[in-house]
């Protein structure tokens, strides 16, 4: 794998994480538990999809094959998506969505902060802007974790279950492969060990504040970053990509 290929892969990981999680959040619009929550989740989805545009447009440039953000978003199949499995997991109930969001936000913010110091100026630029958004996302989702964890007996039990179910998807966030190694040498990729440290600290603190028990460490899922996904992603893409695929040459 040469540097350009690694960079392209890396950008797809960043872009696809934001895109798929943003897409999942839009499924809530019109169905959120409170009007105020409609506004909040829409804002987060807007941030994430906006970030995805930035990453994917740059990925297209790096690839140099003339693909733009929409080609990359709408014309790739499951095996060519590079998001982590966590973000493609179904919305479930609101507690599941909050737990998924928080586990991702707690990773996303330190990752983007690290990338704002990236030697690649385009990455640093997108990351600097996105990290402000991610800081807010993390604060907001952490507050919700605490509210639901320390709310009623019902919400406590539900949220504990959400974390237990999603926990096996967190290992992949920090797994290193050739892409990271290739880019680490030139100071492009973030140091995932440091990101993991901050993630772990923040998650431990938040779960304690929420009176939740940290899930047992054990077997972890993997594969999303290399294009081996769960069954969920195909359905997400089928819905998201329907129009550009049904009308091949149309402009919208």
């Amino acid at each position, binding site marked *: 794998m040469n540097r350009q290929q690694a960079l392209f892969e890396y950008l797809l990981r960043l872009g696809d994480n934001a895109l798929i999680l943003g897409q999942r959040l839009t499924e809530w619009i019109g169905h959120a538990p*409170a009007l*105020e929550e409609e*506004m*909040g989740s829409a*804002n987060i989805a807007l941030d994430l999809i906006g970030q995805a545009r930035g990453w994917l447009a740059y990925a297209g440039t790096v690839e140099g094959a003339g693909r733009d953000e929409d080609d990359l978003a709408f014309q790739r199949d499951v095996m060519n998506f590079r998001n982590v499995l966590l973000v493609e997991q179904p919305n479930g109930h609101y507690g599941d969505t909050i737990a998924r969001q928080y586990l991702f936000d707690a990773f996303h913010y330190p990752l983007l902060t690290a990338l704002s110091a990236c030697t690649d100026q385009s990455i640093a630029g997108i990351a600097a802007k996105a990290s402000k958004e991610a800081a807010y996302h993390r604060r907001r989702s952490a507050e919700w974790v605490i*509210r639901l964890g320390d709310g009623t007996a019902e919400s406590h039990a539900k949220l504990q279950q959400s974390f237990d179910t999603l926990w096996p998807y967190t290992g992949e966030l920090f797994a290193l492969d050739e892409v990271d190694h290739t880019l680490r040498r030139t100071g492009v990729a973030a140091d995932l060990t440091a990101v993991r440290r901050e993630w772990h600290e923040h998650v431990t603190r938040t779960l304690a504040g929420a009176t939740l028990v940290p899930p047992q460490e054990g077997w972890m899922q993997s594969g999303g970053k290399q294009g081996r996904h769960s069954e969920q992603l195909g359905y997400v893409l089928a819905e998201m990509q329907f129009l550009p695929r049904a009308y091949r040459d149309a402009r919208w």
Partner: protein
Amino acid sequence: MQDWPLWEVFIRSRRGLAHKHVGSLHACDAPMALANARDIYTRRSEGVSIWVVRSTDIIASAPGDKPILFDPSEDKVYRHPTFYEIPDEVDNL
């Protein structure tokens, strides 16, 4: 089930300006009230600072008190600079 408590939202639109009442929202606690205010009332860069106050904590004057509270100041015209007649030739007053 009861609604989440009601909060009043005040936004400073630019540095140098005072906070101004912009509306209300429901939230279960103060951090949520701030987050919701941000998500609802500053989506178009309307603000640089937010205050939220529980609606029940606001003490308001009664509309019926207008005559006793505010009418008495109406005839105190000497409080306004236009009350005084100064010859045109005199500057800096």
